[in-house]
Structure formats: C-alpha cells, structure tokens
C-alpha cells in the first residue's frame, strides 16, 4: 500500500499486443513526481510503484546505545532537513519566560494529580504508594544536593567534560550531553533554587520489552523503576563531580526544576517529536530525563538536525493512534517554539485510568526500532518503517479490547471531566459549586473551606508528589 498520489502528475495510455495469446493488454501509466518526498510514482497494472531518488543531506554519528555497542550512523534524507535542534524564535521564548513563566505540573496541575489516585486500579494504587516511598528519599537528596561542597579543589589540565561523560556512560546513562542551563525554562517556583550555570543532560533508557506491553502494569514497573534507578545513579554521578572539585545540583526527574527537553535538544541528544517527547537516537522517547547542573567548566555540545521535525509530519502514527485524541496533526507556535501541542485534558484521563497509557511512546517507530534503521528505511523507500502495521500500531486497552491499526477506542464525554488547576483553585471551584447547588453555604462548610486553604498556605507546598 502506497501513499496517495499527488495531483501534479500526467497520464498516458499505451496499447501493447501479445503475440502468442493475441490479447490486447491495456496498461495505464499514471506518473507523478512528489516534491515532498522527491520520488517518482507511477501506477502499473493498477499497482502503485515508486522510483526512489536517494538523497542524503547528512549523516549523524552517535555513540552506541551502551558502552558495549558500536557507534551508529543515522542517514538524514534531504527531504527531512530543517534546523539543528528546534524551530524557535529566541526573542519570543525570552518574552514568555519573563512575563509568563512556566510552572511545574506538580503545582499547576495539582488538582488532577491528586484525582488520579481515585481512578487507579487496586494494583496500581499499591504500586504507586510503594514507588513514592522508595523515591521520596531520592527526591529529598536531590533537593539539598546543590548545598554540598566539593571534596577537593579542581585538578588542572584535565578534560572534565569527557571525564563526566565517561562516568555517566559507565553508570548506564544512554545519552549524555552538555549545554547551558537555560533559565528561561526554569519553573516559577524553582527560580531561586537553581544554582549552577551548566547542564549535564542525562537520559536513562527504560526497559525495552516491558515498554512494548504498554499500557500495562508491566510497563509501569519499567516506567517508575527507571525513575528509582535514575535517582540513585544521579547521587553517584554528583559525588563523582564533587570528587573532581566541582559543585553539582541534582534536578530530579520527579521534582523537575524546569522543562528539560529544550536543554536536551540544545545538547544534541535528540529532537522534539509529535508526541511531545524527546526522540533520541537509540530509544526515541523510551527514556527518563534528568539534569545535573554544575559549576564545572564543561564544553557544550551542539544541537543536531536528525530530521525529526519533518519526519514526524510524515509519520503521525502517534497522532493517529492516541486513544484520547490528545495529539494534534498540525504544529503551532507555543511560547516561541514551533511544536505539536498536546491537549492535556484529553491525555490525562486515559493516562490515569489505563496504567499510564503511553501509547504515543509505544507506537513511535523510533522507540520501537531505533533511529538508524527508521531513517535508512525512509531514505531507501520514502516510507515510515512499521506505519500501518498491527505490530507497530496495535494495542490493547484493559477492559475494552484490542485495537489494530485503523481502529481506536471510544470514551464517554464524562470520562474526560477531571478536576482542573492548582489545589487552591480546585478548592475554590468546589466551594463555588456548593453555593451554586445549595444557594448558600453553611457556616461549617465555610470554615472547612478556610481551614483547607490555610493548610495549603502553611505547608508552603512545592507540589512534590514523587510521581511523573
């Protein structure tokens, strides 16, 4: 099955004669040229064929997935090139950061983050409680890590960048990169917490086969288990940096200080995908991201054009397969960046109800096969590897059934009705609803509302909940 033919083709008919059978064979050619893929397409005997003009813009070379794997080469088709990193307007990014700073979901979406516990299955509820207990000391250690002094003075004439990179790779981080810690992406509530100017971007791969069972408890074990592992590895890496004479602050993957993906893109570790996730060379979005900031004088890496911006435009598998229809086909300009903007309210209910969902991660061909074979296949054929197949696109939703390529689950309208906003906004919303329902509120209800608000203020909650 091929792609739809473009309209700018031409048509000719030829008549051939068969000598032995004395049959006239009519063959209709419909020949077109696609500017988008730079391929010739034609129909012969009712079947579409394609003549590929292989054009590679550049080849990206990246270290292997682990220290035991060989370097990979990723051919980027000339039709996929845009810009290294991300398409953005720096002036706009700065404007929004200054005037409308972003805030962590732990605070801004606190109401629905509490609500998720009410829709978890029993098994998920118990596992989350277990995970939170395991994770809490790791997050607390990260929180104070920037206050710890180095053990020694920095050694002269050593390549601290490569020493840190090598140590991080030995610990198991699959992607390691260095860039400026861009304060424009720091959350409002964390602006005074961030201490050091340089960012070490670290991605830890999530288990392959467990992730292919998404959505499932097995996949959630991989998801949360990776966070637990990553939190511990970060402590070890930060200690290594202090032993080298520098300061290190751990930016936990569970109590995020900033939007991390833009810094990963700047460090050349991938590009932003249509699913809103970092697509990195070896595991696409199947990784968990964190940062260690440091005062070590590291050398910055450069952003890279992996071809992802255009690739996702052609692929769109995550958009087409999202159970909640939360992903959008067209990019928009959002806070100075051109991107596919996720519709949170359509994502969250599915994610909470069905074991973290993650279908957008599951069906991404780069997650499944790795960037090198996917990009090579695109160069060879102009097609997206796995697109339209049940093996890539099929998934099962607990209690609803199996959905092969082309079929999606449906949900009631009420399913998407979730609490919104911060905790105090949600309390106020509930209070207003009571007044609307009852005409007035009792004194005890007013006191209860005041006590709840007072409790929020006195706890000065950062919103940390050990979750995602």
């Amino acid at each position: 099955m091929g792609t739809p033919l473009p309209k700018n083709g031409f048509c000719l008919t030829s008549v051939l004669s068969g000598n032995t059978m004395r049959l006239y064979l009519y063959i209709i050619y419909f020949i077109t040229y696609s500017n988008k893929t730079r391929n010739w397409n034609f129909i012969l005997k009712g079947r579409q064929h394609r003549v590929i003009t292989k054009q590679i813009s550049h080849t990206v070379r990246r270290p292997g997935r682990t220290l035991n794997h060989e370097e990979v080469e990723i051919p980027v088709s000339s039709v996929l090139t845009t810009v290294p990193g991300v398409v953005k307007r720096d002036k706009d990014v700065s404007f929004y950061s200054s005037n409308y700073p972003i805030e962590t979901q732990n605070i801004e979406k606190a109401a629905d983050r509490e609500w998720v516990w009410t829709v978890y299955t029993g098994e998920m509820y118990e596992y989350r409680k277990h995970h939170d207990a395991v994770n809490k000391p790791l997050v607390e250690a990260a929180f104070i890590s920037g206050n710890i002094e180095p053990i020694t003075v920095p050694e002269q004439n050593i390549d601290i960048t490569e020493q840190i990179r090598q140590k991080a790779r030995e610990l198991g981080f699959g992607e390691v990169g260095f860039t400026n810690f861009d304060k424009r992406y720091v959350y409002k509530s964390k602006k005074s917490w961030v201490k050091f100017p340089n960012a070490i971007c670290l991605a830890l791969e999530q288990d392959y086969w467990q992730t292919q069972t998404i959505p499932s408890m097995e996949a959630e074990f991989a998801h949360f288990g990776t966070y637990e592992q990553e939190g511990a590895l970060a402590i070890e890496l930060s200690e290594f940096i202090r032993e080298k004479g520098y300061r290190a602050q751990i930016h936990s993957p569970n109590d995020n200080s900033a939007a991390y993906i833009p810094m990963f893109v700047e460090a050349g570790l991938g590009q932003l995908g249509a699913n809103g996730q970092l697509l990195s060379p070896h595991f696409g979005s199947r990784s968990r991201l964190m940062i260690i900031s440091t005062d070590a004088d590291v050398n910055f890496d450069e952003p890279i054009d992996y071809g992802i911006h255009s690739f996702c435009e052609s692929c769109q598998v995550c958009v087409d397969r999202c159970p909640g229809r939360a992903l959008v086909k067209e990019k928009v300009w959002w806070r100075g960046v051109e991107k596919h903007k996720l519709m949170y309210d359509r994502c969250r209910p599915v994610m909470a109800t069905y074991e973290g969902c993650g279908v957008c991660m599951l069906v991404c061909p780069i997650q499944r096969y790795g960037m090198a074979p996917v990009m090579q296949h695109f160069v060879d054929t102009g097609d997206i590897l796995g697109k339209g197949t049940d093996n890539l696109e099929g998934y099962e939703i607990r209690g609803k059934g199996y959905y092969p390529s082309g079929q999606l689950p449906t949900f009631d309208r009420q399913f998407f009705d979730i609490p919104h906003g911060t905790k105090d906004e949600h309390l106020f919303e509930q209070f207003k609803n009571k007044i609307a329902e009852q005409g007035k509120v009792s004194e005890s209800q007013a006191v209860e509302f005041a006590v709840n608000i007072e409790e929020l203020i006195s706890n000065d909650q950062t919103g940390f909940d050990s979750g995602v």
Partner: protein
Amino acid sequence: MFKKEHIDAVFGVLNSDYKNHKDSEQLHRDAHLAIAYIDANKNVPTNTDPIVVTLLNKYGPKD
C-alpha cells in the same frame, strides 16, 4: 502482513521459552525489527538472531 495472532504467537514463545535467555531483550528487538521489514516487503536483516528467524518462519503469515 503480521496480524495479532502471528504477533502473539511469536512473542508468546519469546516470553515463555526464551525469558531467561542471556540475549532475551535483543531477541525482542530483533523480532520487532524483522517483522517491520517483512511487513514492508524487505529482507530480514542478516544479523537477526536465528532463533527469531525460525519463529517468524514458523508463526508468521504464510501468504
């Protein structure tokens, strides 16, 4: 084209008979990539584990 029954059969065996295999994860990666190539009418990569090739021949679509 691999359908659900073919996919379930291949990965069912990988998950039962080869769960403790030293290269269990690589077998899964190989199987997914090989299925993608077969579905795209391309040859299976030459470095695909023979265990995977055997399973795909046994449980894959016959047409």
